[in-house]
């Protein structure tokens, strides 16, 4: 026998299921007005500093079908790279957004400010990115990934540098499709599979 550890084991995940929207996005589920104030409807308030951008995309399953029931959450810092709660952070950036694939087209839209680069523990910076978490029926534990931007300098980003197969880096980079508009598609499996994170 050995001594007993005091640490606990994390509670196991279960799928968020097909009706996740009831709990996290009641208006989307058809229950508008359930709460006085819904959470995560926008990551920014009026007056947020920086460039307001729109990111559109879809989450594709392994057959190439754009999932109609995917729910995504994003978390990001302000235009200067400060997260809500950090000293000097832009008070108009709340950072969290919940958004869902359209039930008819499977396309999502995230409207936010472009984030700044983020200081790393031990020095250096991560290139500007938005953290994304995806859940849906059939996803047993939420999938983490990141949105980077093709018009930013991503050359010294420590996470992108860790991706061995260089073409896969592109799966994390939003393509510019217009002024302040980007496209970011997620592919859950197979050809062009998005890099998912354990972080």
């Amino acid at each position, binding site marked *: 026998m050995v001594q007993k550890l005091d*640490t*606990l084991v994390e509670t196991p995940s279960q799928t968020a299921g097909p009706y996740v929207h009831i709990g996290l996005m009641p208006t989307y589920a058809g229950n508008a007005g359930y709460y006085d104030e819904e959470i995560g409807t926008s990551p920014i308030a009026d007056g947020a500093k920086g460039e307001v951008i729109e990111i559109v995309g879809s989450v594709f399953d392994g057959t190439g079908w754009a999932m109609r029931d995917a729910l995504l959450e994003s978390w990001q810092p302000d235009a200067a790279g400060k997260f809500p709660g950090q000293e000097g952070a832009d008070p108009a950036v709340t950072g969290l957004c919940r958004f869902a694939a359209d039930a008819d087209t499977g396309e999502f839209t995230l409207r936010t400010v472009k984030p700044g680069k983020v200081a790393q523990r031990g020095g250096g910076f991560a290139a500007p990115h938005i953290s994304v978490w995806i859940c849906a029926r*059939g996803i047993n534990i939420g999938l983490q990934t990141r949105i980077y931007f093709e018009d930013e300098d991503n050359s010294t980003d420590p996470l992108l540098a860790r991706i061995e197969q260089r073409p896969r880096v592109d799966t994390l980079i939003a393509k510019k499709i217009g002024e302040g508009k980007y496209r970011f598609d997620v592919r859950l*499996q197979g050809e062009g599979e998005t890099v998912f994170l354990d972080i």
Partner: protein
Amino acid sequence: MTDLGPLIPRNREAHPDAYDPAYKTSVARSPYLPLLSMESGLSEETGPTFGHSKLGVLDNNLILNWTKGAAPAVGERILMHGRVVDENNRAVPNTLVEIWQANAGGRYRHKKDTYLAPLDPNFGGCGRTLTDENGYYQFLTIRPGAYPWPNRGNDWRPMHIHISVYGHSFGQRLITQMYFEGDPLINHCPIAATIKNRSQLDRLVAPLDLASSRPLDFLAYKFDIVLRGRRQTMFENKLEGM
């Protein structure tokens, strides 16, 4: 030890695999390639905070919140309660806990749910609350019904309540489900069975908690939640280049 270290890496063996053919929908929705593992940074160690100002007084009372207190929902009245702690067994105070569930007949109030059990006009099926300074939370609700779902020929979901928690950092994000002690359907459910370690699955089964029930009013079920913790050693703040 003033600064918290990175998040403790997630123990993936505590969780279901992404791919589980008995849960058919997972087959086309599971990554083939391994996840990219890295130490957490600010993007994962920070997270949203929520104030009491956003929450309504009935938000954690699902018996009454759909009708804004006008009429109670049908079903077996229960208190669902417990604590949110991290892997270091420290309370996670002031964190958002959200739940959603079917009504007593097993029907969700969602535009996509067409199960033949009727909607309860007095039940919406979602609630939210913040943990107190000790990580404690509670909801008053009704026990959800079991329901059939299209998977294999005759699959039924055991009675369950979905739970979503943030903790204090986006990397602690967790969604799971609470099951009820004694429900025979747990052992037949391919979603519950995605958790291969039986002792881990047992942690999702809430025991009947008679001591917390209120006579002539409601039964109680206790459900504690453990989120990822932060590494805490004096060696965290390593100098550049070391």
